[in-house]
């Protein structure tokens, strides 16, 4: 994972597929990035040549498809993602990566608890694929059925997948953190051997972090921040955290995007 691995690849888009309302899966041929990427790492994509939009957009790596294809699952938000969605297979984009620190799954885990909110599912799909040992429980929350991204095919070691929607239009009704809380309350005997891996909106991550503290279960979260360089050069992507127990700003692109939940100052977010 040394910096020398970071590459700026002029990559061919090999496919685009609609996965849910306003959500697309894009396959990008970036063999250099595909070769070394680990779950939780991200890429910075220049959505088109020219000066507007100016900055690259950060996206988690959602998976690797052999040979050399990087998968990105993205949601339409503004102009950049709109432009991305109009790119046709065969066209090229510039992709910088793999960037940042990914998840560090604890190989001794008997149970990995994967918790996602909305598009935050992207890095967890890659993580689920790469988990080798133990068993995983995937809890994926969405607003309603139209946003649901099917993960059944994505996870090799997940016998249990919970889909949760806020309006109950698919799967269980409620918040994904409710399901997590129930599991943690129920499975007292397993707590010592479980870890949580989470990605989603800040309010969800806050709740996950507080549950992890309450039940003493280690937790890694993937965070977001507006970015310019993605390389640790501009200091733009600061989040309030702790370094060596002292308050400090951490940088999502270099210190993260995956952090131990205890290193973030949630009260300042």
């Amino acid at each position, binding site marked *: 994972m040394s*910096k020398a691995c970071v590459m*700026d690849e002029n990559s061919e888009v090999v496919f685009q597929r609609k996965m849910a309302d306003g959500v697309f899966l894009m396959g990008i041929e970036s063999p250099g990035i595909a070769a070394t990427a680990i779950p939780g790492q991200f890429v910075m994509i220049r959505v088109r040549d020219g000066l507007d939009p100016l900055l690259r957009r950060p996206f988690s790596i959602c998976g690797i498809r052999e040979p050399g294809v990087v998968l990105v699952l993205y949601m339409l938000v503004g102009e950049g993602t709109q432009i991305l969605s109009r790119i046709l297979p065969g066209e090229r984009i*510039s992709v910088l990566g793999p960037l940042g620190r990914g998840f560090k799954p604890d190989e001794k885990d008997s149970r990995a608890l994967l918790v996602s909110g909305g598009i935050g599912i992207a890095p967890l799909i890659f993580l689920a694929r790469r988990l080798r040992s133990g068993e995983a429980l995937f809890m994926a929350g969405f607003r309603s059925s139209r946003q649901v991204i099917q993960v059944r095919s994505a996870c090799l070691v997940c016998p249990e997948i919970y889909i949760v929607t806020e309006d109950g239009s698919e799967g269980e009704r409620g918040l994904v953190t409710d399901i997590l809380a129930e599991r943690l309350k129920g499975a007292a005997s397993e707590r010592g051997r479980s870890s949580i891996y989470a990605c989603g909106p800040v309010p969800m991550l806050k709740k996950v972090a507080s549950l992890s503290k309450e039940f003493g279960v280690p937790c890694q979260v993937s965070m977001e921040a*507006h970015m*310019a360089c*993605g*390389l640790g050069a501009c200091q733009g*992507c600061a989040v309030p955290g702790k370094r060596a127990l002292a308050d400090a700003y951490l940088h999502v692109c270099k210190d993260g995007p995956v952090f131990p939940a205890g290193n973030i100052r949630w009260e300042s977010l």
Partner: protein
Amino acid sequence: MTEADLGVEIAGVKLKNPVIAASGTFGYGEEYAGLFDINSLGGLVVKGISLKPRQGNPPPRIVETPCGMLNSIGLANIGLDAFVKEKLPYLSGLSTAVIVNIYGHSIKEYAELAGALKGLSGISLIEVNISCPNVECGGMAFGTDPDMSARVTDAVVSRADLPVIVKLSPNVTDIRAVARAVEKAGASAVSLINTLTGMAVDLGRRSPVLGNVIGGLSGPAIKPVALYMVYQTAKSIGIPVIGMGGIVNYRDALEFIIAGASAVQIGTANFINPRAAVEVIEGIRQYCETNAIARISDLTGSIRA
């Protein structure tokens, strides 16, 4: 065809070409080293260093604007001691000119920084940031007043054992007055422009987007303003001008050189294209060869006006 001479000299320091990576956009060099051979640059300016480490401003610190971006980093940096211990060993092994950008809260701090850099190997030039708009008690106040700018310059020049570049703020009524003042106070060169003060509003929350409310605008959006200031300044002082502001390709760089710059810095473009600076160097080389220009320095200030 003979190869064009891209070498330039700034205050007696020879640069292999006129293209320098700008402060705050290139980290401490290492960050980009895996992406291209950074020794091919004419030079690189490190992130602004202060006496003590600085955490910087509350997030969000970055917002994209049409053809540009606002930043309110707040001069977050590792501080002088850590810079010398952790970053300088790497930098001093490079074969490109290393320029250390410094920033203080008071004239005394500027002078102390210049003194602390004395005798260290691996540094070619000092660039004094008197223009950062982000820190209330410092930057802005010095750079907007010719007299204060001159006092900072004098304090640094008298303590430093390296030539001093003073980096000018565009957030002034007449940049020439500041340029003349720092020239008189002993600056060996000036660099301009730093970012233009601006802000962005979040309509949904009816609040400023940046945690610090205001930020500095950079990128292609500021190029015409920067070009004009370089043009004006170069005509009114005798020391070299290093031009920057929105340069993304070799054509932009040449425009600055023709307007009066002896060298250029590349900032925001590094974020969009990490190879921007090398591509600018290559483009300048080809332009010189195509147009039979023997020395890039012949183009400086060659504008027909």
